[in-house]
């Protein structure tokens, strides 16, 4: 799994790629959410478009990010969840918690709503 971070306006876009299967690398994702808050950014868009495989470990770290960012007064939103990942959000009912988008511009704009 790889992590890429970039600023788009006042939103931190974190892109994950590869397999999100658990282990120490998930700590990096958790740390990326915390780092955003520590640097004064509480709006994060998580791009999952290049994630080829994910299970409950990935969902766990996403929920952790949601809690971290919500407490900081911001939000974590999801971009480009694949069909399989979207299915996991439905099974676990996390779809009721997260706003999901397939268009980056629309997603970025939504933080200003």
């Amino acid at each position: 799994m790889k992590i890429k971070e970039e600023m788009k306006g006042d939103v931190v876009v974190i892109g994950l790629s590869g397999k999100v299967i658990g282990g120490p690398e998930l700590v990096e994702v958790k740390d990326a959410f915390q780092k955003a808050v520590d640097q004064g950014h509480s709006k994060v868009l998580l791009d999952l478009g290049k994630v080829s495989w994910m299970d409950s470990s990935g969902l766990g770290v996403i929920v952790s990010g949601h809690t971290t960012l919500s407490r900081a007064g911001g939000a974590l939103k999801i971009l480009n969840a694949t069909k399989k990942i979207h299915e996991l959000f439905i099974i676990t009912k996390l779809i009721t918690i997260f706003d999901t988008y397939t268009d980056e511009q629309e997603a970025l704009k939504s933080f200003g709503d």
Partner: protein
Amino acid sequence: MLPIEIRFPSDPSVLEPVQQIIEAVGRSADVEEDELSSLSVAVVELVKNAMEHGNGNDPDKMVTVSFSIFPNRIRFLIDDEGTWEPEKALGFNPGEGDELLSTRGRGILISRNLAKWVEFGLTPEGKTRVTLIWPIA
């Protein structure tokens, strides 16, 4: 077909190879390409539970996955070295109420939803055995 067995330590570093093996098993049984990742997620979730709840994440303790391919289904057996019950190990329903925001505990829920047929039981030696049946169209 007689069962084929793979045995590995309770170490997260083996999860990716195990995931690849499960997808290879599915491919050899003509599981549709689009369904292979769902199959491997369903099995890997149970493997992770076996490592954690059955073996206490002790790398000296082993998890055994055996599989048998039949004309209309694949049967996976996931064995660990402990004896545990899923409801007691979990202690809550991660898909409901305040637990919705738990950072863990969704593995069995996901596995049961993807595979449709997941049953917890015991081996003849009294250790935990999970049976997962994956139908083949």
